[in-house]
């Protein structure tokens, strides 16, 4: 593990330097929406990710575009090869935890779910999911903690802990390349609407909604950042700025913070509803977990 961490740290520093250099030249190449630059395609392990898909008729977009398309060459390249992707430090940790016995029941995830590459295939693509017993949708983090506390007799992991990030990255990886496909009908409808309301609501002293930036202005520079559509197909995501992997709800919080609003709590009903709604805006994009962003 130690050796791996070291290698990861070096890779990160090297990548950060590379990215800074690349950022300087990126303004030369502005495409109509995304950045037109090499590498043009996201192919990981010979599998091509769908980073652009035609939007359905009821979408506010004409084309759904992954956040990868808006990043500069250095950041794009880091996602192409798992050896260059610093998120894999956490993935390895998640893989280890998968078969580590924990809690009063003497069980590990593998005790019930066996081989993750089988049992967890497609799971990320469909979250958040309706939970009948709880009567509300669950993010993957909720589900993992449900299994830990209710089935293993183990303590819940903190939302932003390395264990939770590692596990959600590892489980998410099993769906990489599969199209995002969340359920929004039935009891989810009401939650979807709640998420949508949050998305279009202006907040903070700067008085902006998510849509002001990610719907009305994607493709444009906002100071040093190129705005994307704010798609969530890559979470948890390694962020160069954070120098670590982070949860989606951390990202939501950060965006709200920047406009001088108080974010909701990670795992709150509000963020789960928002997650559901934003996921639905990216139906059909490939799961990229764990993605790399600037």
């Amino acid at each position, binding site marked *: 593990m130690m050796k791996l961490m070291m290698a990861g740290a070096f890779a990160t520093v090297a990548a950060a330097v590379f990215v800074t250099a690349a950022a300087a030249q990126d303004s030369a190449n502005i495409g109509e929406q995304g950045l037109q630059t090499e590498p043009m395609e996201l192919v990981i392990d010979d599998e091509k990710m769908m980073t652009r898909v035609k939007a359905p008729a009821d979408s506010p977009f004409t084309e759904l575009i992954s956040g990868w398309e808006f990043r500069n060459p250095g950041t794009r390249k880091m996602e192409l090869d798992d050896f260059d992707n610093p998120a894999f430090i956490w993935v390895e940790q998640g893989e280890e935890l998968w078969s580590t016995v924990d809690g009063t029941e003497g069980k590990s995830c593998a005790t019930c779910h066996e081989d993750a590459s089988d049992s967890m295939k497609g799971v990320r693509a469909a979250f958040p999911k309706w939970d009948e017993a709880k009567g509300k949708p669950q993010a993957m983090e909720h589900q993992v903690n449900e299994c830990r506390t209710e089935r293993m007799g183990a303590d819940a992991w903190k939302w932003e802990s390395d264990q939770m990030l590692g596990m959600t990255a590892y489980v998410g990886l099993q769906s990489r390349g599969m199209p995002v496909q969340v359920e929004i009908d039935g009891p989810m409808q009401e939650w979807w609407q709640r998420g949508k309301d949050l998305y279009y*609501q202006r*907040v*903070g*002293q700067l008085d902006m909604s998510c849509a002001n930036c990610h719907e009305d*202005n994607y493709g444009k*520079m*906002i*100071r040093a950042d190129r705005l994307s559509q704010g798609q969530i197909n890559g979470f948890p995501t390694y962020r160069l700025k954070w120098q670590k992997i982070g949860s989606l709800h951390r990202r939501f919080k950060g965006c709200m913070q920047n406009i001088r609003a108080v974010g909701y709590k990670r795992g709150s009903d509000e963020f789960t509803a928002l997650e559901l709604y934003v996921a639905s805006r990216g139906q059909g994009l490939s799961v990229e977990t764990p993605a790399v962003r600037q």
Partner: protein
Amino acid sequence: MIPRMVWIASACIAAGVTAASAEVVAPDKVMMEDMTVGKSLSGQAGNPDEGRKVFASRKLGNCLACHANADLKNELFHGQVGPPLDGVADRWEEPQLRAILVDSKKVFGGQSIMPSFYRIINDQRTQEKFHNKTILTAEQIEDIIAYLKTLKE
């Protein structure tokens, strides 16, 4: 660029009147008519050099986040969300610029992404430390207006 004499003159005015800042127009007392605000918010003329700083500062106006401005080309990263402000003084009169800065939505419509720099917003999950505060002070807005008036083509 503004002639040096004018700059010195306005700096003197600024220094002289600061003590008696009673003339500041409170955010809820701003009179906007036909998308114009005629009266100086601070009761005095702004200082264009200060305005240039406020314009560029990430913590204050952060106007460069959204607007390119050739006069500040030595600053890295100009945004593209709003139109470039080169020559903005040829397009808008001072009372219009003041209205745009006070409450952009009243000029551009409710969909605008541009913040309202002189409006108090406490009830939108606003962080506590920004309660009862406008993004910019009356003086800073007047400084920015004085600066924008130097941007002619």
